[in-house]
């Protein structure tokens, strides 16, 4: 080949070669891109592919039942159909329609899904609990349109009664994002149901089971192709409380919606038999999920139904403090049985006049009479002799001013005032007039009802304070075998001093005292009344407003000689302590009934025989 042919083959040769080089470079670059995905990051993408094709459906474990000491159910689980939504599959367009049909807030739902993804949860999260038949039908009928929604038969918490023992049981609800970040719920995943308060919170781990998992192969439309594996759920364990449902119900009926609390416990071991707070709420509404409006309504209720007044409410202890004060005087050695004060109906001090509740005066009273009649002037005098520091020291020895460390969350410590406390918190000096006020349990001193029961109960059994507990030692040993039960706090008190107190408190109920309402025929009850002022008497009489009425206290124990139960009752604005005394009597009456019936016959007889000479 010569001439033109040879020349034609040289046409644009350089640019053709350049083209070939560019082609090679581009293809090499693309191949490199494949290497980046397939060679370097293959494992990550394989995991993503797995996440695509395997849909894990949680099998929710039922929560353990909560029983009273006789095995009666306080909280149980029941089967309900729940809607779940897959956070990874959820399409924004669908959310609005799903929310509309299931009566949910679409914006809220969107936020939930974003939260779930922030917590690394791309599988199913709870959408709505307890679906109605119509809602289930809607989901089933629209499977292909809404592949992200699934229905799960699970168990939902059910609290028996309409709020019986609501405060001590607490309630369960879905964990908030803040709770998921806390150490306490480290093991809970997004969407987990956790105990929010009370027993449910304190023993959450024991009550919570282990969720199972159903892994299924699905296609891009969410259709299930085959089941890959099933891990069965492990149910939560049963929790038996020391609560006696009968006492609990009697206490709650006695409070009857008034603000107040009742605590009944066995001072020999700290077991709580009843712990009632009023007004009550229905914890079931938290389980079912409430609207923002309902939630705000409950939280803004001036009656504060969510407050567990037995451990979170504090009030002036009033005259219930007097036995503790008297013991302080005896132990400090400033008074004895013969110490007598003449009550003229009041005491003048530093330009002020401190009246006795009996304006006419009690006349000469000794210690036993002072407790029985609740003479204020006697204790004004005693307080002046002791001084605030001594009073505070003995009050603390009796268990006031500190948490009882009951096995419930969020207990408050109350307050025993002292010079130091006032200087440090109020930046003011202590006035001797304040000592007089504290002498009768008024002023800055405040206690919770459980502290009142705990303190008086400890004295009644001779100076041993067991930590109050809702779970017996035996049950606790199962929950945490490594936990050593805390030893009781002891205070070595002179037996004679205790006998004087007991005599005084016996007279309160059984003699010419202030607490005759608490008297029972079958059993001897000792106790102490208290009527604590919320405002000065003048203010109360001038305005005549219900919220200015005095708070009514009564703390009683039985049997007097060898106490097995102590009951504290507080009724806010209850006016007269005998209302509280009647409440304690009702609780003790039911307790006595049980005691006589359930105790083995022989033991019962021997107990009765043993007690007779003492009574």
């Amino acid at each position, binding site marked *: *080949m010569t001439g*033109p*042919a040879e*020349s*034609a*083959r*040289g*046409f*644009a*040769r350089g*640019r*053709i070669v350049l*083209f*070939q080089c560019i*082609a*090679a470079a*581009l*293809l090499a*670059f*693309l*191949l490199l*891109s*494949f*290497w980046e*995905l*397939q*060679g370097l*990051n*293959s494992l*990550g*993408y*394989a995991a*993503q*592919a*797995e996440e*695509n*094709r395997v849909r894990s459906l949680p099998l929710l474990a039922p929560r353990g039942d909560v029983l009273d000491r006789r095995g009666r159910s306080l909280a149980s689980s029941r089967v309900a159909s729940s809607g779940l939504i897959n956070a990874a599959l959820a*399409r*924004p367009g669908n959310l609005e329609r799903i929310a509309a049909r299931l009566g949910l807030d679409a914006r809220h739902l969107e936020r939930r899904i974003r939260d779930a993804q922030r917590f690394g949860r791309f599988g199913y999260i709870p959408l709505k609990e307890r679906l109605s038949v119509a809602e289930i039908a809607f989901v089933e009928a629209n499977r292909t349109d809404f592949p992200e929604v699934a229905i799960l038969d699970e168990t939902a918490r059910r609290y028996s009664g309409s709020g019986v023992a609501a405060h001590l049981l607490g309630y369960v609800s879905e964990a908030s994002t803040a709770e998921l970040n806390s150490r306490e719920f480290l093991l809970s995943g997004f969407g987990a149901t956790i105990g929010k308060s009370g027993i449910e919170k304190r023993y959450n781990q024991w009550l919570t089971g282990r969720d199972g998992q159903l892994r299924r*192969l*699905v*296609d*891009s*439309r969410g259709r299930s*192709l085959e089941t890959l594996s099933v891990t069965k759920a492990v149910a939560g364990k049963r929790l038996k409380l020391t609560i006696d449902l009968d006492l609990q119900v009697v206490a709650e009926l006695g409070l009857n919606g008034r603000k107040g609390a009742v605590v009944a416990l066995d001072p020999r071991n700290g077991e709580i038999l009843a712990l009632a707070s009023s007004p009550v709420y229905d914890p079931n509404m938290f389980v079912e999920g409430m609207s923002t409006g309902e939630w705000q309504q409950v939280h803004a209720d001036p009656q504060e139904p969510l407050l567990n007044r037995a451990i979170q409410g504090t009030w002036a202890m009033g005259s219930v403090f007097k036995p503790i004060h008297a013991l302080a005087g005896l132990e400090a050695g400033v008074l004895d049985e013969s110490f007598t004060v003449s009550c003229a109906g009041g005491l003048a001090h530093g330009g002020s006049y401190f009246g006795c509740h009996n304006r006419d005066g009690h006349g000469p009273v000794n210690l036993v009479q002072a407790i029985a009649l609740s003479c204020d002037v006697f204790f004004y005098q005693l307080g002046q002799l002791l001084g605030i520091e001594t009073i505070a020291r003995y009050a603390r020895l009796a268990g006031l001013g500190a948490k009882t460390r009951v096995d419930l969350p969020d207990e408050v410590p109350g307050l025993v005032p002292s010079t130091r406390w006032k200087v440090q918190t109020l930046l003011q000096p202590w006035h001797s007039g304040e000592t007089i006020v504290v002498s009768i349990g008024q002023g800055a001193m405040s206690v919770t009802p459980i502290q009142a029961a705990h303190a008086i109960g400890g004295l009644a059994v001779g100076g041993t304070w067991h930590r109050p507990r809702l779970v017996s030692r035996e049950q606790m040993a199962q929950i945490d075998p490594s936990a050593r039960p805390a030893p009781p706090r002891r205070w070595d008190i002179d037996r004679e001093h205790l006998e004087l107190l007991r005599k005084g408190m016996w007279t309160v109920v059984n003699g010419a005292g202030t607490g005759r309402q608490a008297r029972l025929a079958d059993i001897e009850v000792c106790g102490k009344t208290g009527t604590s002022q919320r405002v000065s008497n003048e203010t109360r009489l001038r305005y005549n407003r219900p919220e200015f009425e005095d708070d009514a206290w009564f703390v009683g124990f039985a049997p007097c000689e060898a106490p097995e139960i102590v009951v504290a009752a507080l009724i806010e604005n209850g006016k007269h302590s005998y209302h509280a005394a009647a409440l304690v009597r009702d609780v003790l009456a039911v307790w006595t009934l049980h005691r006589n019936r359930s105790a083995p016959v022989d033991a019962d007889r021997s107990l009765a025989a043993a007690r007779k000479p003492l009574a």
Partner: protein
Amino acid sequence: MTQGAANTPGLRNFDWVMIALILAISLQGLLQVYSSTRDTEFQSAYSLHAVWLGLGLVAFWLLSAVDYHSLADASPVLWLVCVAALAAILLWTDPVNGSRRWLPTPFGVSIQVSEVTKLALVLVIAKYCSRIAPRPAEHRVAGDSAGRRRSARAAPPSSLRILVMVATVFVVPFVLVLNQPDLGTALSMCPILALPLLLSAARMKHIAVAAIVALLLLPVGWSVLKPYQKSRITSFLEPDKDPRSAGYQIIQSRIAIGSGGLWGQGVAQGSQTQLRFLPTPHTDFILASLAEERGFIGVAILLALFYALLARIVQTAKLAQDPQGTLIAMSVAGLLLFHVVVNVGMVVNKLPVTGLPLPLMSYGGSSLLTVLAMLGLVNNVRLRRFVN
């Protein structure tokens, strides 16, 4: 330039190396179409694809049979027919899926005219550009006089007219296709114009200027894009921003490719493909599906085959008996490279989603037919590389 019947090359003169490469690629495509459509509503696609492959080979043979010079001479008429058909589609047919692309025929078969138009464009543009190509003597032969070289630099008076003509021939169908609207096909027409111009007319300096102007015009191009086209580009840049809609394909494609690893999940074993997480695994994203099931090795083999095919076409371009043949072959090479790069780039998330099929692989009759017809032209050029 006519050829005697005695010199007509026979089947045994065909470029069997190229044909082997074509078959190697398209049979892998057929296998992947089968694997990615099993148990779906497209499960018979592979048999239809095989029929199209057969028809494509017939087109290959037909376009090899007649001397490309005769075809080029007839191409202006074909061009006119195509432009008329494109105009008719825009004027008289109803949109299908939002665009007008198909010309119904009385035989019940619809024709995607834009594909046939590409064929016409290859021939017409090669024909005109070959006229402004530097004369071989000026270009190559050493020992020429300086005077002749100078005259070569001064553009002949006719070349500007030819350039305008070439531009017109390109722009008219380009605008018509753009209005269907079919941005992907319109863009894929660009190499048919670009390569012949770059090879024959432009000087390197001009090419550089043109590239800069094109870059500067990018923002203007952005502003004329339709919203869905914009979202394709933004979701290409940030697929994770909107994982449920526009970014979905890209994310699923990446997962499919990545989970393939080195050796792949095995034919018909890829979960992304088989459970249909990967959208359009038998058409635009067929390479993602192949990457999942055959792994990096499979992809490397396939891309190597494509490169070998391109190299073979380039060799044909070098061997062509005249610039016209060279330009035809290079046009086809450019078109093929463009398609491969745009599709593969999209699949590995290096380029935005355009909806261009992977030549010889993706399911779809018109693409397969057009590519095989064009490769037939290349075979044609090679068959007639000897000047008689």
